[in-house]
């Protein structure tokens, strides 16, 4: 019994993409912050 791709299940997919979105957000925000701080520091050096 394997999940049928044609059997579109809104609930599962919504939660799945929300999960990916939140995990991604938790990873991207600190990365972006650090990048900004590093570029600030580079500007400071020059």
């Amino acid at each position, binding site marked *: *019994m*394997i*999940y049928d791709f044609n*059997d579109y*299940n809104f*609930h*599962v997919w*919504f*939660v*799945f993409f*929300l*999960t990916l979105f*939140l*995990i991604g*957000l*938790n*990873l991207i*925000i*600190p*990365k972006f*912050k*650090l990048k900004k*701080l*590093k570029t*600030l*520091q580079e500007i*400071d*050096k020059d």
Partner: protein
Amino acid sequence: MSKILKKFITFYHKLGSYPWFYKFSGIAIPYVAFISLIPLFIGLGWGIFYSPTDYKQGDVYRIIYMHVPAASVSQSIYYTMTIAAIVSMIWRMKMAGIFIKSMAPIGASFTFLALISGSIWGQPTWGTWWIWDARLTSTLVLFIFYIAIISLYSSFSEKKSADQAVSILTLVGAVNLPIIKKSVDWWNTLHQPSSIKLTESSTISLEMLYPLLLSIIGFYLIVLLSGLMAMRAEIAKREINKEWFKSL
């Protein structure tokens, strides 16, 4: 024995140093990213595509592979924050304050995920988005605690006193959470709102259990990864004008 203890103590002292942690997390992050993404993707992929359909709920039950790990993670994050708050209050370890500050938004996001996924799961299975069940209510309170901690932190301009204030609030919250949980349980038995029972003792089949365990492990490792990254960013933010950071 004393050698191990000594090593542990030096590790603890190193943990308190910003440059050491910054360098260490820089090395560790790619590895942690690598190990965390594997169980997460295998667990979720296996759970969503290959695990058997539940005979009662149909395919909707697959939300369990996101909901249960999120709920578990959201509580564990609060426990680790409590430990950090104790460390920060007693030993004034600066890194503990950074830990609480970085973990609170992560905890809030996973609590949010647990609430939303729970209500989306509830809609087709119980026919309602929300019931005032004991477990749902205490998760909601946990979410409010996270929000209060985040907003308290942002209301202070001085980082050091913000760390201490947030530690106090985290500790008071940790002492109160069991009381709240217990009282919500009483309240729930007093006004049994509907015949819906959330905590049905069901035996989960192994084919469903393995992907669930994998995705729980994946969620914990992802929390570790995002915690490391957030702490690294926070250290950089606080130490941007320090010599060691400039010389990197």
